[in-house]
């Protein structure tokens, strides 16, 4: 069964460093998303991406964040200068064009900023 895959599963980085989280969405999906979940808290929307551009972003998604689809299969989230409060699980999701627009999530990347 097709699935969204994310790498790495766990990333530890020093404060101020740049990190890139990678995702391979389901192949026939056209909408891509990043979410984050701070430990014990809600799953929060960060950004959605369609047709090679951001379609919506939250207030969390500030200038330190960027997304890219560098080729036909990968979808990346870059955090330019990580802060301690960026520590969270980051989930990538994808969906196809359908009336329900069901979103399927990856297993997540646990980002720890020290």
């Amino acid at each position, binding site marked *: 069964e097709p699935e969204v895959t994310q790498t790495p599963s766990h990333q530890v980085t020093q404060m101020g460093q740049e990190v890139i989280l990678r995702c391979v969405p389901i192949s026939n999906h056209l909408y891509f998303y990043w979410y984050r979940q701070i430990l014990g808290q809600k799953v929060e929307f960060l950004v959605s991406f369609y047709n090679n551009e951001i379609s919506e972003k*939250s207030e969390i998604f500030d200038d330190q964040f960027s997304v890219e689809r560098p080729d036909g299969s990968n979808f990346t989230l870059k955090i330019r200068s990580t802060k301690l409060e960026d520590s969270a699980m980051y989930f990538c999701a994808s*969906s196809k064009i359908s*009336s*329900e627009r*069901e979103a399927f*999530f*990856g297993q997540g990347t*646990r980002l720890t900023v020290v």
Partner: protein
Amino acid sequence: TQLLEQSPQFLSIQEGENLTVYCNSSSVFSSLQWYRQEPGEGPVLLVTVVTGGEVKKLKRLTFQFGDARKDSSLHITAAQPGDTGLYLCAAYENTGFQKLVFGTGTRLLVSP
């Protein structure tokens, strides 16, 4: 931002009991999705409900979408320890399928 309130927040029951989890909002949704999330993993889609009043069954899980499409419920019959997890409802904001927002979640623990 539309708010999806789930209740209860926590539920601890014995194996074999029945339970119902609620997802409420003041907003109308074109569809609503239920997910289950286990610790350290991503949300796994269980079901999507689309039509007001719709009822969908997934083995021992019964999902209902409110007539006005503002609320939904998840009923589990004869809960098993394997049902333990965080249950999340989610819906797109009305702005057109770009932003899926999640509810506050119900954490379920089923003890043997």
